């Protein structure tokens, strides 16, 4: 196709456009592109602060090491299980909370506050609070068990129970964010749709199934993307509750990256692990994005 002739006025406008874009581009490069490039570059280096005499370029070696590292695979598995459990868990609980909060309460602020509080709480605090809930001798959960004459359980040092208790904390913490996103979606659904459905004789379940859910779909996808990315990065709550224990049965990829870089000071290998984690987020979120594109294409 032949290029259209561009007049001097348009050219000036185009230049102005670029000039206006430049600050955003520069900022993005500085805070996103540069760190990612540095990470990728570091991941091809041997850079271990306890062995500075071995520094140098090693190419793919750090990635090869990850492929042969059982602990990497274990951390990857744990991370994927957290994604598989806490993402649907948070979406379901969040949807329930959003539907509740959308009821016509006379006074709305206590409901909103209840939704916002867990979200506003720092992750580590949530982890520490739940650690005390599940503590063996003094925890609330074991106190209730004892009240009913049951044996107390080692919630934080039995692998399955440690997983359940950390997942509970994560779902509690993250469902309020999901609820906020979904609540916004719910309020955007025009009430005329419900009225029309009611006129057609649709039951409450049918209205939910055929009006609410389809209309809420874009909001659910947004919530899913955000929740999945944060689930892949799960760190604070298991870190505060179990420290990855017992053994490393609750150690996620993010925790392994942190251990490798901050504890062991192996920045080269840690960067390779972080790059692999980045790939995982990219792969999982691109699935959702493809899904939404398809929706837009057909819808």
């Amino acid at each position, binding site marked *: 196709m032949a290029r259209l002739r561009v007049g001097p006025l348009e050219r000036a406008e185009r230049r102005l456009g670029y000039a206006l874009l430049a600050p955003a581009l520069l900022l993005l490069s500085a805070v996103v592109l540069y760190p990612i490039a540095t990470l990728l570059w570091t991941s091809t280096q041997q*850079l271990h*602060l*306890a*062995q*500075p*005499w071995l*520094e140098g370029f090693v190419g793919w070696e750090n990635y090869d090491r990850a492929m042969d590292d059982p602990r990497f695979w274990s951390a990857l598995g744990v991370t994927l299980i957290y994604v598989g459990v806490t993402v649907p868990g948070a979406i379901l609980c969040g949807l329930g909370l959003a539907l509740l909060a959308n009821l016509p309460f006379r006074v709305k602020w206590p409901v909103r506050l209840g939704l916002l509080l867990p979200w506003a709480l720092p992750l580590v605090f949530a982890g520490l609070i739940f650690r005390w809930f599940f*503590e*063996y*001798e003094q925890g609330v959960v074991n106190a209730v068990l004892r009240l009913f004459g049951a044996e*107390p359980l*080692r919630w*934080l*040092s*039995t*692998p399955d129970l440690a997983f359940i208790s950390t997942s509970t904390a994560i779902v509690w913490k993250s469902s309020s964010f999901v609820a906020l996103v979904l609540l916004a979606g719910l309020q955007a659904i025009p009430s005329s749709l419900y009225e029309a459905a009611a006129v057609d004789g649709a039951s409450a379940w049918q209205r939910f199934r055929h009006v609410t859910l389809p209309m809420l779909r874009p909001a659910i996808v947004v919530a899913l993307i955000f929740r999945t990315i944060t689930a892949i990065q799960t760190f604070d709550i298991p870190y505060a509750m179990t*420290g*990855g*224990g*017992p*053994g*490393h*049965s609750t150690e996620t990829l993010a925790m392994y990256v942190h*251990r490798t870089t*901050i*504890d*062991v*000071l192996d*920045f080269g290998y840690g960067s390779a692990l972080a790059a692999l984690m980045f790939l995982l987020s990219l792969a999982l979120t691109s699935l959702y994005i493809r899904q939404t594109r398809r929706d837009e294409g057909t819808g």
Partner: protein
Amino acid sequence: MSTSNRIGRRAALAGLAGAAVAPAARAQAPVSLRLFTGGQQRPDVMRRILDVFQERNPGIRAEVEVGGATSDQQQQYLNTVLASRDSALDVVLIDVIRPAQWAAARWAEPLDAYLGAERDAIMARYLPAYREANIVGGRVMALPYFADAQFLYFRRDLLAKHQVAPPTTWDELSAGAQKILAAEAAANPSLRGFATAGAPIEGTVCSFLVPLWGMGGTLTDAQGKLALNPAQAQRALALWSDLRAKNVTPANLAEIATDRIRVDMQAGNLIFAMQWGYAWNRFQNDADSQVKDRIGVVPLPSFAGNAPATCVGGWQLAVSAFSKNKEAAAKLVRFLSSPEVSKMQAIAASHLPVFPEVYEDAEVLAANPWFRDARAVVLGARARPVTPRYAEVSEAIRTSMNGFLAGTRTADQALADMTQRLTPVLR
């Protein structure tokens, strides 16, 4: 350009700049030093000692920054500060296992120049273990602040009541704990027999090494190479599984960190504990202590026929390589690592002295009657492997131990994991 070169060049530049500015600055504003210590190393006592220093050195102000409760948490924070070559900290209190790593990473300013001609004479005054721990590659990387070792703490009142003698072997400890637990269960259902660190933290490394050494075993040979005898290591781990099977240790041992043991004992809920020296002072002086004057301290039990073993602990004062006030920082470190301060700490915090003569000081003994026997224990204590890659060694041992103590890994599996991960590091 390598990191070390960069650091070297920066240090050199900083040194030049410091030399040019120092004389002018000294006359005007006082030098301000920032000292980092852990929450468990009695920052309150450190503050009192620093006040004395400030009184004698009006030109220098020193403030305390308090870090996390465990050695690992502190080092995680320090790793981020020092890897980014931040000059915010001047003096850092580091665990006895760290000088080799700090030397390799070039985070500690070698102190030889600051000690001058007296260097050898000064170093000769310390207990040998601490002299050796702080000299890396022939250079003084830090100076000792206080010594430490693990001891057996016990409830004197409960042992006397049930006619149990302070145990000298692990079998006696197990039998004594079971006897007392059986008799006291009705009066105090929260009472537990014995605790040691089991969470995935640094202290748990010693929970592995103490029984291993006690069996006559070793982790590394004289060259620092891994020399773990699987049969011996198995028997060492069996100590903890036996005590667990007999309900002497708490069910959640794998969740217990060092200071939690102190808290439980202080609340009157533990008969025996393997614990460091600092706990004594808390038992005696804390307002909430339920066990004042009811605690005894003896060397750790042994396995019949072997000598008892214990880990060398203790805290060292390093001058940060990135400090802008190294001269003043070194002066402070020399003061803090003096017999005078060793005595002050011993009385105020039951911190074990790093000078042999302070153990015999009358005032020190009045505050800590058990120090009389403690010197021999400190002298006999063994060091954890000395390597710049100690962080990896520790990580491999404590996570394997934690899995074993939680019952999720058998002794075989835990030892196989540990060996597989230690082999490439300790070679």
